C-alpha cells in the first residue's frame, strides 16, 4: 500500500540553525500538507500546498517557514532560524483530488537545543 515517507526520523539542531525536513508524498497525490505536534499537545495545521503554491497557511507558519516541491517527488519544509519552541513532531500529509482523506507520514522529531 502506498505511504507517505519522511526523513530524517529525528533531527537535532542548535537554536538559530536552518533545518530542512523532507517528505515523499504518495505518488499520484496533488495536495500536500505540513502539520506539527508539540509533545503532549494537539496536531496543528501549518500549511497546504497545491499546484506549486501555498493554498493556505496558519498563524504558526510565519516568515521563518517555507515549503518547496523541488522535483516531482519531494516536498520540503524549511525552518530558517530555529527556536526552542520549534521543537515538535512534524508530519507531512498528502491527499488526492476531491473529497479524499489526508494520509500522514510517520513524522520527523525536531529537537532544538
Amino acid at each position, binding site marked *: 500500500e502506498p505511504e*507517505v515517507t519522511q526523513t530524517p526520523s529525528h533531527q537535532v539542531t542548535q537554536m538559530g540553525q536552518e533545518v530542512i525536513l523532507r517528505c515523499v508524498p504518495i505518488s499520484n497525490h496533488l*495536495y500536500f*500538507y505540513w*502539520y506539527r505536534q508539540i509533545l503532549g*499537545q*494537539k*496536531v*496543528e*495545521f501549518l500549511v*497546504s500546498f*497545491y*499546484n506549486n503554491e501555498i*493554498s*493556505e497557511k*496558519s498563524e504558526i507558519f510565519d516568515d521563518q517557514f517555507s515549503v518547496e516541491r523541488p522535483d516531482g517527488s519531494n516536498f520540503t519544509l524549511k525552518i530558517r532560524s530555529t527556536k526552542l519552541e520549534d521543537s515538535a*513532531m512534524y*508530519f507531512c500529509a498528502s*491527499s488526492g*483530488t*476531491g*473529497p479524499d*482523506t*489526508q*494520509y*500522514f*507520514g*510517520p*513524522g520527523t*522529531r525536531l529537537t532544538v537545543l
Partner: protein
Amino acid sequence: SQKIEQNSEALNIQEGKTATLTCNYTNYSPAYLQWYRQDPGRGPVFLLLIRENEKEKRKERLKVTFDTTLKQSLFHITASQPADSATYLCALDPLMDTGRRALTFGSGTRLQVQP
C-alpha cells in the same frame, strides 16, 4: 473561535466491550469529520470519514455517527481488543475547496483496552 472537545483524556475498558468516544465542536460547520488513530511517536492513521449529510458510517468493527444539530460525533469500537489501545483523534475538515483542507484536530482520547 473554533473549539473541539473530545470527551475524556483517557478511557479504560475491558476486552470485548464497546468503546464509545465523543467529539463535540462549537463555532464551526465542517463539511466532513474524520477519525484518526495515533500510536505513541507515530503519525495519525486515517480510520473513517463522515460527511455532513451522512448520519452514520461503518467499517468492520468501527462505527461513526455525525449529528450536525448537536455538533457532535460518536466513534464506536465494538468487540474491542487490546490491539485497539491507542489515542483516537477527531478532525474537522472544512473542504473550503479542494485546495483548502486544513484539518482541525481535537486533543484526542487515549483508549486502553484491558485483556
